[in-house]
């Protein structure tokens, strides 16, 4: 399904068309769920974020405008902010880590191929610019984007001092900005 079809479905959704909303869910939920799974790493939490995102999309469909990117990118931003909120609610993360070892295998994806979907993703539009970054810069940004890692967590994951991580991300984003402008 292409961008213009997403837009048609979203416009109809904004008018209260439930069939269009259902079709929009069919067409987009797989991508939104993938984003949510990467961040939350647990199916039940990822589904909770997904549900909340679609409730918001129904209520706020008329808020979309083309300055916010493609319809799909806008929808992804909604599920991603919700998942980030859940992730930042410190207890969820702490409990998840504490209980990871004895989790019910139905809901945990820690050992499954879904864990790091982003390592075998398609090429994104922004990749033309990501290619211009130094490897540690793009790695740090990728981890922050897909896994929702904080500076501290990126620093732990990449075994690098915090100052370097902050600078990689800051400079990486600056370089992305310059590239996106050209």
């Amino acid at each position, binding site marked *: 399904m292409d961008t213009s079809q997403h837009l048609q479905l979203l416009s109809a959704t904004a008018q209260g068309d439930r069939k269009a909303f259902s079709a929009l869910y069919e067409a987009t939920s797989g991508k939104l769920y993938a984003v949510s799974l990467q961040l939350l790493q647990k199916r039940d939490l990822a589904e909770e974020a997904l549900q909340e995102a679609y409730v918001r999309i129904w209520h706020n469909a008329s*808020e979309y405008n083309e300055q916010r*990117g493609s319809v799909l990118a806008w929808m*992804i931003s909604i599920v991603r902010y919700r998942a980030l909120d859940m992730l930042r609610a*410190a*207890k969820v993360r702490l409990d998840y880590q504490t209980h990871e070892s004895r989790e019910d295998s139905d809901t945990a994806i820690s050992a499954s191929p879904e864990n790091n979907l982003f390592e075998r993703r398609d090429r994104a539009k922004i990749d033309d610019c990501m290619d211009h970054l130094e490897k540690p810069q793009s790695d740090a940004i990728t981890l922050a*984007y897909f896994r929702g890692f904080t500076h501290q967590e990126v620093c732990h994951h990449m075994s690098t001092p915090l100052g370097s991580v902050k600078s990689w991300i800051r400079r990486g*984003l600056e370089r992305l900005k310059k590239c996106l402008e050209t």
Partner: protein
Amino acid sequence: MNYNDENLKNALSSEYVLGTLKGRARVRYQRLLLERSDVRQNVWHWEKHLNTLGESLEAQKPRAEVWQNIQQRLGFIEIQKKTSKPWPTFLLPGAALAATIFFAVILFWPKPEIVEVPTKQIAIVQNAKAEALWLIQIMDDKLHIRATDNVTLHADNDYELWMLAKDGRAPVSLGLLPKTGENNLDRPTLFDQIEIAALAVSLEPLGGSPNGQPTKVLFTTELMML
């Protein structure tokens, strides 16, 4: 902090979208998003580009229950008796502790207005020059309103906030807006039971509308999410 500095604004917007701007800095930036359209547009710019990364993931099929739950939450289908646990049991002690910590933070926080409370929706009332007049945050249990310096102060009038329903019923008063500073208004039950087309602000005699209907509607605005 000088948010007019383009480089700083870009740095903050990009890290806001990426998620690495967190804690109080994130809350401050969220408030700035309500106030300034240039900041909103800058954030949209980064959302547009960075979220193409999310689009590049291989789609994963959620369970069929997810769509069922969404329809239930939107009132499309009747709520069935839940068979699954809404929250993993191992998180329950954690949730109790989190609640305790949350209230402890509320009690001892030096500036309560910057406590991070999740905002589901916001509305910005603007004048004809697109200057923000009031920032309205829709919380779970209340509406938090902040007046900006752009509000015209009338000694003999109050401003009243109304919700306009999509079903065409008469406007429903939500209460008086602050002329300066901040206040909270109750979030009426009706707020969740009807579809809201817009919010409106009217100019009223002191104390609010004498007849339960807006006297002179000055501004309208739609609800939107962050």
